[in-house]
């Protein structure tokens, strides 16, 4: 990002360092008093989130930082987005489309929500279709949304079978070749990946982002 002012740097630093009060105060000042370009402020936020993601990958940050970062971004977005003018360029081009949901029988969503947030701030268009998602809903959503990647989430051991069924149904519907499928959740490992027929599994949200980025690069 070129032409960064001291204030810009300060916002990024405070966001990346989890100094919520200072960061939100400064972002509000930039947006509401200084008349800063809201798209630029959001880009600064994304840059800060890159730093957060890097610190997560390096083992410096953990889930609490990801969650707080998400909430800070949401608060700034709520102020910035109404200020974006219609002519402002139509937003950033997304890397790829990801459809994500917790498989049927399982109601857990903490991990899925963090993956959704991390994919979103890393430039993916993400559609989250919730928890306890029936197989047919995945098929219908894939037909409607045409994702490049499908993410199946599940925390319970019953999710192994649900993931297998979902992937088998995607295959039976003739949709499997159009997409990559990743799985994740507390008990997921290579054994489960092989059992379900997924392309990959991730241990955390950064894994999910890396998988999607690699697939997006290959597809480009």
């Amino acid at each position: 990002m070129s032409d960064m002012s001291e204030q810009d740097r300060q916002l990024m630093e405070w966001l990346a360092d989890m100094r919520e009060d200072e960061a939100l105060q400064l972002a509000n000042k930039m947006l509401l008093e200084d008349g800063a370009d809201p798209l630029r402020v959001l880009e600064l936020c994304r840059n800060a989130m890159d730093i957060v993601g890097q610190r997560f990958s390096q083992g410096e940050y953990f889930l609490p930082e990801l969650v707080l970062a998400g909430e800070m971004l949401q608060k700034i977005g709520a102020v910035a987005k109404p200020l974006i003018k219609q002519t402002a360029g139509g937003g950033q081009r997304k890397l790829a489309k990801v459809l994500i949901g917790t498989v049927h029988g399982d109601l857990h969503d903490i991990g899925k929500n963090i993956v959704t947030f991390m994919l979103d701030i890393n430039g993916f268009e993400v559609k989250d279709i919730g928890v306890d998602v029936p197989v047919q809903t995945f098929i219908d959503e894939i037909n409607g949304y045409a994702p490049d990647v499908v993410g199946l989430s599940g925390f319970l051991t019953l999710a192994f079978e649900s993931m297998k069924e979902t992937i088998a149904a995607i295959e039976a519907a003739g949709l499997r070749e159009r997409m990559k499928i990743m799985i994740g959740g507390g008990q997921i490992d290579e054994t489960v990946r092989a059992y379900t027929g997924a392309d990959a599994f991730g241990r955390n949200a950064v894994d999910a982002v890396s998988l999607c980025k690699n697939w997006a690069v290959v597809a480009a």
Partner: protein
Amino acid sequence: MSAPAPGTPAAATGAAAKAAYDRRWQRILDCVALKTPERMPVVMYATFWLAKYAGITYRQLMYEYEMTREIAERAVLEFDPEAYNPMVLQSASGRALEAIGFKQLQWPGHGVRDDQPFQYLDREYMKPEEYDDFIFDPTGFYLHNYLPRVASAFEGFEELPHFPGLHYFRLVAGIRPFARPRVRAALANVMRAAEEVDRFVAQHTAFTERMTGLGYPCTNIATSIAPYDFIADYFRGARGMMTDLFRHKDKLLEALDKAAVFILRQTVASAKASGNPIVFIPTHWAPDAFMSEAQFRKFWWPSFRRVMIGLIEADLVPMPLWESDCTKRLEIIRDVPPGKCIYWFERTDMVRAFEVLGDVTALRGNLSPSMMTTGKPHEVDAAVRHLAENVFAKGGKLILDCAFGIPDETPVANVRAMFDAARKYAG
């Protein structure tokens, strides 16, 4: 040991059963005391797997007391473990949950299908601005705020009087709320619910007494919780707790200190009443991935350690289940007196755990859920052999189990393989 068929009076086994019970229990106690037991104990921890084992629905398992008792007994007798978990208490809670109107769980017939396990609803059950009320007067907060939020039988308790401060004639006048219709209804509802809970617990007691008569000890009756998990899971919810680490850290630390005191008091009382010294403590927020080492040292470990030390001082045996992967925590959680605990690991590499903790605690676990549910018996055999050879045979006081009990979907053949392999490779 040849056990009588289910339904046979327990007393029929007499002295032989008592001797078998004592031998089994001694193997567990030897592990705790860091003595080498005569063979590697293998325990059976089953909840919804019992439904798969017997070919019934999860709903039936939760609601049919007699059937659940019969199935649990059959499973214990078939697999012949050193000890078993309180299966009836952990499975047949449907009627009690219904009677109390429990809102924090969805269970078969109440939000999930008949073939699904119960699942906890992660929500914000206490707002951040309520920390002060919780810290100042936990009992008052429970009565007026928390209980009506988490169980419908308590709805009406919001109108109960605030007791502290009532005195003299104000005390007399102060009990007027008990005449209100909502309060009266709530009290009646709670009494009705308690009667069902009484029946439920009586079933559990009858089951454990019968199994004692057949020679099988229960691993534990009492359970407890880490103060951090208590606040995170049951009050603030996952998101709230994670942001509290930044936004309300002082209040959180104060609440953890307070909770450690009453959790310890309550756990000691319930464990002493049960007559079983082992206290099962499933932990949720300790894993490596969930917080930094600095956060773990500051927020998670100190209050939990205080609870564990308090239990040990009361001659009880803490048995935390370290969920997920806690490899990076091993050096920290080593800081307990030797020969007093059982550390049960879910995904932490057991060989590594043995290397770090082998001279401090007994170990329990940890056949992987993915292997148990999707693997073949020969893979289970190999995994047990790995643990027997690399932990037990090298001096580790290992109590063999699955990662977090038998996963619900595990084929019976894999459970058979686990028990057979334990005897084949470790006595």
